[in-house]
């Protein structure tokens, strides 16, 4: 199957959906189902749009994008299914968002990437507008626009130096034309900052707080799970196959390390559950990009997968909890899980996995990250990772204990059976992968090679 259908079908349905509002939600579900089906049937390769080989726009399906597509589409589908009520009038937006997300993961063209970045960005603004916090959405809008503007500027500079937009050709062209790395610092930095805004990197991410601290289950999972994963994977592809960090690598590493530290420390100092989770998400995305920047693709993908699954569980449950209890102060949520043990179990497993304790998938990921970092002899960085994960563990344990054990009155909330089932399955998945990871690690094995293949072939067919 042609992977472009992953983008075309949701787009088509989006256009159809505005003709009659009644059909919008069914169309969304059908599009999601079709996409999930398609993801598992498409085959690897370069797919041209319009038939102009490496001179036009291409979609690249390799192991990397395939894994990303699978994870993102499945989670997107489940998010919509488990939050059917909140979808309401957002169906069209979600359809466009789905197309944008798939486009970001598939595209092999820098400008096309910008277009999809815009699509995803605007749908994200609209999705967050459902929080009824116009100011936060406006902040997001302003920052996102500045970010994509910078990305575009960087892209223009890069094009004027290399004369191509094909991601597989940038690196070979740089080598061919012998462009010195210092000349590339500005465009790469502009693009890095542009994507950094969406990827929640530190000085550029003040939108995250406003957006996520008032988000419901649907919004938070989409923003912190689906979009974050997509952006991280896109970023990862650029960092591993396009960017030559060279002279700016120090600035980049500092930004990423500070993001990680600041996220965890801010989460430590937070008293609201959604705030804790959002800061933790910031730190995680800092770590993911940090791994990509160090060329550690496999651990980064593992972390991304672990991250989206646990974020799905954490944010869905938190969203339902806040809906039901009308509060997100941890102090007033004490003991909520004593009345909702299954949900509590899933939440606990997800948090333990995020902390990186054994028997859970997060542990395997952490071990992988550290082994890779140490094989590069990155002593400082790995020490930093350990310190921040200690902080992370501390506030998660504190949170868990408070949510399980009550002092005084316990608030209750209702959760649909479907949400319970999905979160439980995800939680069990974290446990299963925590014990037996071989299939996953095997399928990740070829990712770095395949990523470089397109470059070696110079985007030819």
């Amino acid at each position: 199957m042609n992977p472009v259908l992953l983008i075309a079908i949701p787009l088509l349905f989006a256009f159809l959906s505005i003709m009659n509002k009644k059909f919008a939600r069914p169309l969304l579900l059908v599009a999601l189902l079709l996409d999930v089906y398609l993801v598992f049937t498409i085959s690897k390769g370069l797919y041209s749009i319009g038939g102009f080989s490496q001179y036009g726009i291409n979609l690249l399906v390799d192991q990397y994008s395939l894994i990303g597509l699978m994870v993102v589409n499945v989670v997107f589908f489940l998010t919509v299914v488990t939050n059917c009520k909140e979808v309401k009038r957002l169906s069209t937006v979600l359809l466009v968002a789905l197309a944008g997300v798939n486009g970001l993961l598939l595209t092999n063209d820098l400008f096309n990437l910008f277009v999809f970045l815009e699509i995803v960005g605007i749908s994200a603004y609209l999705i967050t507008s459902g929080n009824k916090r116009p100011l936060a959405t406006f902040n997001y809008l302003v920052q996102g626009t500045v970010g994509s503007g910078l990305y575009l500027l960087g892209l223009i500079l890069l094009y004027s130096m290399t004369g191509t937009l094909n991601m597989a050709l940038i690196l070979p062209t740089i080598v061919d034309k012998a462009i010195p790395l210092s000349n590339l610092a500005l465009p790469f930095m502009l693009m890095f900052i542009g994507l950094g805004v969406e990827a929640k990197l530190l000085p550029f991410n003040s939108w995250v707080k406003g957006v996520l601290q008032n988000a419901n289950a649907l919004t938070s999972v989409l923003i912190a799970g689906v979009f974050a994963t997509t952006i991280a994977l896109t970023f990862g592809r650029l960092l591993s196959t396009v960017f030559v960090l060279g002279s700016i690598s120090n600035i980049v590493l500092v930004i990423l390390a500070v993001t990680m530290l600041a996220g965890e420390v801010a989460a430590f100092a937070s008293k609201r559950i959604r705030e804790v989770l959002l800061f933790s998400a910031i730190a995680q995305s800092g770590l993911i990009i940090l791994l990509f920047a160090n060329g550690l693709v496999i651990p980064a993908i593992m972390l991304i997968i672990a991250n989206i699954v646990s974020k799905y569980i954490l944010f869905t449950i938190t969203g339902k909890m806040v809906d039901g209890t009308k509060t997100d102060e941890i102090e007033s949520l004490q003991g909520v899980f004593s009345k909702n043990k299954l949900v509590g179990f899933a939440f606990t497993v997800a948090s333990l996995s995020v902390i990186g304790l054994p028997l859970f998938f997060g542990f395997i990921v952490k071990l992988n990250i550290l082994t890779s970092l140490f094989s590069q002899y990155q002593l400082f960085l790995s020490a930093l990772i350990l310190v921040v994960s200690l902080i992370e563990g501390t506030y998660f344990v504190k949170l868990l204990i408070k949510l399980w054990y009550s002092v005084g009155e316990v608030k209750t909330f209702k959760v649909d059976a479907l949400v319970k089932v999905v979160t439980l399955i995800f939680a069990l998945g974290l446990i299963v992968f925590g014990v037996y990871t071989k299939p996953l690690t095997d399928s990740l094995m070829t990712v770095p090679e395949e990523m470089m293949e397109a470059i070696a072939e110079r985007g030819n067919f």
Partner: protein
Amino acid sequence: MFSIELVVLSTLLAGVLAYIVSIKLPKLGSYLTILASLAVFSVLAYFGFNNNLDAEVNLIPQFVLFKTSMFGLYFAIIVSFIFFMVSFFNPYFIKDYKYPAAYNLFYLMALAGTIGVFFASNFITLFIFFEIVVWTSMFLIPLGKKRKPTVTYFVFSTVGSFAMLYAVMFTFSITGSFDLAAISVLSGKSALLVYILLAVAGFAKLGAYPFYVWLPKVLGKSPDPVSAVFSGGIEKLGAFIAFMAILRISPASIYLEAVGMYLQNYVIAIFGAITIVVGTLQAIRQDDAKKLLAYSSASNGGYILVAIAMSSSISLTGAMYHILAHALASTAAFLAIAVVHYRTKTTKISELGGMIHHMPLTYMVYLMAIISMAGIPPMGGFISKWLIFQAVINKQMIIVAVATFFGSIGSFLYVFRPLAALFLGQKLPKYKGVKEAPFLMMIPLIILTLGSFYIGVIPNQVIDFSNKVIAEFGFGPLLMNEFGIQGANGTLSAPIIASVFGLGVVVIAIIFFILPKSRKVGLMDTYTSGEFIYTEELLHYSADFYAPFERLYPAKPLISKVYAMIKEKVNELGRFFKYWFFTNKPEVTVLWIVLILTLLVWGDIL
């Protein structure tokens, strides 16, 4: 043949089974924990003593690998025995827990984890099981009344395990191997780093200075069986790591002629000595019996460290012996307090008194336990302390020697406090109907006491075993004959000492029975200056027990202020980041972007 992996896996499975059973029948589930831990103990002991444990079977793929060693076996048998003993208490306490099913699950998982640690053949396996122990035992803590110690425990344990992880990974990056033997290959500065990190791991888990603050919090506030398991079992993981760190790594360092040991070992010994002193001093002033025992656990950990640091045949035997003796005695003491707690619902010494009249057996168990902990013959603690003293004197380490003797004498003070005030002392009217421990609880109490007594009288088997253990580290055996242990400057004949002691007891008993009985008086018979007293609690025997002594030093350990400060700093940093980077003003973000870009292009210009 019996494979270790099967032991670990089946313990985990038993945990799951106990969980499922306990959802409906928590009490039945807790009986399952008894059976499961019995099975683990007996399998390990039986096959272990016959050298029949199989480490080759590999049911779980990936990197979980085991091996057998006398060193691991020694620890595994002790800890599984402690888990088994304590499990007898589970049925009585299970109904008080908020999540009884989870308790049974985590209890057995923690057991499985500790076994895994002791038999691990590479560091990854070791670390996996170490962390399993950390998080499963962590969830046992809040089942009591207090939630906060859980976080404290997590932080300190994780500091330890992350130090270990870093050491492991660092070793890997240099040697390319996760094998336990890899640390011996290291040299120079990298060896020193690994040495320090592993020592930190051991210290954190053992609760040595400066990490000892978690012990009183956790052991004092956990459910009683959990405290017992921590003190007798899980804490010993720290000793295990410390053994490996100190004995297997040889960083290039200064050799101290005066004491005949390397600098790093001397530093460890000093830290051990500080732990002994601080633990003892704090234990003396505790009013809560469990907290008191917790500090005493810390100070006993100090003895173990001192003994390991001296690294000679005699000191290592002392360390191994002390691990066993302390495990038996402190578990017995904790369980005895647990009985009191179970019957009276309090562990505050000042609220109790005269318990000997209600529970004489528990009293005897406690008495024997503290005798062992104070290092008085004829109990196991005496022999271990004797060995350690021998080694200290032999090395002529004056400071450390002073500390160890101080600890020994101090322990008289603190173990006497609950003895005198809790078990003896005045009988309080409100505990009139309190009964002796239930039958099932008596079993472990008696077994532990007899065990403690046995190793105090006949040390031969234990020393045989520990000789095999220290041989694995390349130390010669400690010499002994049928009745005596050959020390550096003398021979210890435990049976003779024990019989002298027994004689003394007989003599005193005869005197006791011959002399006329004292008249029994009620509490309200107390009077002072001709006035009868109606607020008897204030004049209770044990209120302000060591008041003069307590005035000498502050109640809260200084170091806990440091930790509180670190926590506050992290919080402050978090608020700082939130204030500067997470505002509601998009222009701040834009400013940051502009500044970073300006910095970049400025760098270009220059």
